[in-house]
């Protein structure tokens, strides 16, 4: 009886939960405005430098057009891409696959992670399967999914979901176990109901972990969907990459990759923005502007 009421290690800490795994190390306090603005200065500078080196390689070193098209050629290809009425549907398909895969991973990952985090024996029982699944290179399954689910979006969604599932599930599993002992004492002392304990303590404790998982997962979803499109089908940005390659159209190839990079960045920013709105109190969310 006693052991279930009071665990036997006394290593309580106060205040905010420890940073969840994989959360970006973002120093929240004591940052000078200069430090805060630094990424906004260094980012464009690095971009300009990259473009400079690129242009230099093309026009001075004379790298072949097929290996490295000139920046201007890529910009031109981007313009052509947007002039193509098909492009909207390609972007739409990829976006749909990514978001559907991410959504499935989020729901299933939170459910499985929360369950395993709370039921210790179950977690231990499925541990070998989890480790096996985790170390297997999951993109190797794409051909199997194509056989099972065809060349349509389904196989890509499943690939995206499978990749995104693990970071979410693992973080949530850790999160539900990370409830502070002192916080638990507060709620128990007040005789809080199960529901109130969940609403006011367990959920807020776990949310930062969900977001830490989601930030990784959204990137993995994009990877999953693209790899899926590389292998089969006739739609999506991944397909455009492959078809440009087959046509030996290097500028177009680069342009699609730029588009993919922008898409991935926007999705990541969307997740962090939601995080800032939902858990403004957390250390990983910077204060100030």
């Amino acid at each position: 009886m006693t052991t279930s009421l009071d665990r036997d290690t006394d290593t309580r800490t106060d205040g905010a939960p420890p940073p969840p795994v994989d959360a970006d190390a973002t120093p929240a306090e004591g940052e000078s405005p200069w430090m805060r603005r630094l990424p906004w200065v260094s980012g464009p500078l690095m971009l300009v430098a990259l473009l400079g080196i690129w242009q230099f390689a093309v026009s001075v070193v004379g790298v072949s057009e097929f290996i490295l098209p000139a920046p201007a050629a890529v910009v031109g290809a981007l313009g052509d891409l947007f002039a193509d009425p098909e492009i909207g549907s390609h972007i739409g398909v990829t976006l749909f696959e990514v978001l559907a895969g991410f959504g499935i991973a989020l729901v299933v990952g939170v459910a499985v992670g929360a369950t395993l985090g709370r039921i210790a024996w179950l977690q231990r029982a499925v541990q070998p399967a989890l480790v096996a699944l985790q170390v297997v290179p999951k993109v190797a399954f794409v051909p199997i999914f194509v056989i099972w689910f065809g060349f349509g979006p389904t196989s890509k969604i499943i690939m995206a979901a499978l990749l995104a599932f693990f970071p979410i599930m693992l973080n949530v599993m850790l999160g539900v176990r990370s409830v502070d002992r002192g916080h638990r004492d507060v709620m128990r002392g007040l005789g809080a109901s199960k529901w109130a304990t969940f609403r006011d303590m367990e959920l807020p404790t776990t949310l930062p972990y969900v977001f830490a998982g989601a930030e990784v997962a959204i990137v993995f979803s994009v990877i999953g969907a693209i790899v899926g499109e590389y292998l089969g089908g006739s739609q999506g940005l991944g397909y455009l990459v492959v078809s440009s390659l087959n046509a030996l159209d290097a500028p177009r190839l680069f342009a699609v990759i730029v588009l993919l990079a922008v898409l991935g960045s926007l999705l990541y920013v969307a997740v962090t923005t939601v995080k800032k709105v939902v858990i403004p109190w957390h250390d990983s969310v910077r204060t100030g502007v």
Partner: protein
Amino acid sequence: MTTQQTPTATWTPPPVRRDEFDASGDTAEPVGSRAVGLRVAGVDKTYTTRRGDVHALSDIDLEVGRGEFVSLVGRSGCGKTTLLRVLSGLLAPTAGTVEAGDRPAWVAGRRDDAVFAEFGLVFQEANLFPWFTVVDNVALPLKLRGVGKAERRARATELCATVGLTGFEDSYPRELSGGMRQRAAIARALACDPSVLLMDEPFGALDAMTRDRMNLELQQIHAVSGTTVVFVTHSISEAVFLADRVVLLTPRPGRIRSVTPIDLPRPRTVEVEATAEFGELVVGLRRQLDEED
């Protein structure tokens, strides 16, 4: 000024009408209508750890009357927190009984929340929720009791003023100093008009001046609300200043070494610390502590 030396022969309350008995005796303090007394008998607590058992409390008998103010003092690690957790019903003793207002804390292995959830607890750490602002932390006990949003905010704002946190209502705990967090935790404990206030070194993180002010404030809260208080502290003078009785614990395992009644008149002001009587009490307790080595 008598000091009882035998641990088991703690002060015996009048046998009749226990629920109405007022430990402060001849002083004119009101006893809060919600206040309840506490009683532990034969309490033993052994922690089981990976590196063997730790015998934290041994054979504790203690009775705290309704509305009484008891201070617990003793060396670090002597079991003060453990005893307070046992009194709060958060920790089940290995042996012995715990009662509040004549109701046992443990029924069929479960804590009786009807009585024990009415306690106000201040832990050694502030234990504020980082996801709530100060005012929301303070209002948490009211929220759990279904008090409406506007009302609990108003009440919590008042409590913030009581502990000197006006202007910080909408800050997050991480934006407060350690002492401010502790004061917010005190405000939270007071939020639901507790029947018993259990405080574990609440002023440990405060500077001497704030501490004096908080002591006066606590005395005032005790006098007005008439609530029962058990107050753990390292500071003997703080214990004497606040308490009706001072309980001294000795370590390994934690036992009650002595119970010292403090008959200084109330309300007490900082001047009382300059009196000979006060000095004698403090010296007497300090000597007992030193005898341990």
